[in-house]
């Protein structure tokens, strides 16, 4: 199993979520994060003084899937989260050695 971590633009969250549900993904976890990257932050001006805000609001989606589903999920996220502009984000694929469903204690792929 793999954990797919995608850092995306916040306003794309709903679209990505809907697309993942459509391909049968049954669960995911979302965190508000701040991203630093090639996309330049903006400046905020208070009382005439400029402050550079170089961390931008992003959303991290974590989905754990069976090995077979990895490519499909990457594909869907890439398509729906893309705007073609800098700052669209990244996807990381991380190995997962085991999964447990707390409610039942089931382990492994059935628990995903």
């Amino acid at each position, binding site marked *: 199993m793999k954990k797919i971590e995608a850092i995306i633009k916040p306003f794309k969250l709903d679209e990505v979520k809907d697309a993942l549900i459509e391909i049968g993904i049954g669960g995911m976890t979302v965190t508000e994060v701040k991203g630093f990257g090639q996309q330049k932050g903006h400046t*905020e*001006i*208070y*009382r*005439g*003084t*400029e*402050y550079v805000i170089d961390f931008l609001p992003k959303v991290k989606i974590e989905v754990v899937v069976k090995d077979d589903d990895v490519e499909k999920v990457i594909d869907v996220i890439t398509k729906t989260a893309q705007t073609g502009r800098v700052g669209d984000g990244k996807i990381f694929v991380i190995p997962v050695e085991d999964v447990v469903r707390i409610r039942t204690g089931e382990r492994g792929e059935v628990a995903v």
Partner: protein
Amino acid sequence: MRGLIISIISLLVPVGTALAEEKSTLNSGDTAWLLTSSALVMLMTVPGLALFYGGLAKRKDILNTIAMSFIAYCIVSITWIIVGYGIAYGSTIGQFFGNPFEYFFLKGMTPSTLSDNIPAVLDVMFQLVFATITVALVSGSYIERMKFSAWLIFTILWGVLVYPVVAHWVWGDGFLSAHGALDFAGGTVVHINAGIAGLVGALMLGRRKDTALIPNNVTLVALGAGLLWFGWFGFNAGSAYAADGAAAYAMLNTNIATAAAAIGWMLVEWMHAGKPTVVGISSGIIAGLVAITPAAGFVNVIGAIIIGVIAGVCSYYAVAVVKQKAGYDDALDVFGIHGVSGIIGAILTGVFADPAIGGKDAVGLLYGNPGQVVTQIIGVIATIVYSGVMTAVIIFIAKALTGLRVKPDAEEEGLDQSEHGEKAYNI
């Protein structure tokens, strides 16, 4: 000035009360308005100013910022009825200050003691809320680094030794009053006074590690600015000491100048920094309110608009350009807004005072009395010198007693935790 206001009032009040100065009778309408005004000015500090300042502070320092205003209000409320009112309005001692013990715990005042048209104790109350907000205003310069215990000491000393003395000069039987300085509702006594104290104290406290002004909660800034504006109607129109045409003019002028200042700040910020901000509009509101304070009952609406625009624009530059260059760390711009707009308002009152509005004793440069400007400038300078020196002395005493600044670690962690052990938001 007090005498002046009374003579204006007497012009406006219908014949039946023309004897007012000979034998006072209580006017229930005037009393109603002064009761209301006292409540309005109280609201300016608690919670108006506290939330305005709190919203501008960093997240980790907001409660300490709020606490500074709240406790200043409480402490000065007590010192005022012990010696403060006496120093300000007791029999003058060399035109410098009043007899501190003349109204010690308000001895001898009953509900039926009158002060002209209103109960004497109501004058104590109305003047009290002015004293409290002046001290609270100063805190904006000191936040995010000052020990809470040092602030308590500052509050007690400054609320006794500085505010009432300057009030005596201008509104009691002090020397500025005798020279005819015009200060309708406290431009000199309140705003220049607080602005200078803020600047001097900020210099003595030194810079914060992180001097950025990134407001933690702009909704509180907007709320605070709104409550201040609302309360300021009591501050300025209440200073007419009657529910009459002078009060109404003061209210309208306050509104117009403030609107003009907010628009002025917004436009100059838009041109200079690229966007019009809510913090900017709110700051312009305060600048306008400050600048019209000494002038509210003396100028006509065109004068009010001009004063407002000048104050909005100049305070913007003071805050956005001058402060950056000069490098002092006046955290929330008490000097840049209250000091600068206070000085502008005080001097322009001497320019725009229109006898058709404020009566024959309030005539400005434009109406043929250039000397008024000089008198105004003398008042400004006297206040700057006294406030500056005394603030330095008081800060020095506080330093000796408790030390001034929290530990560097505590400053980083935030004063809410270090001074109060609590957190603003658990949301």
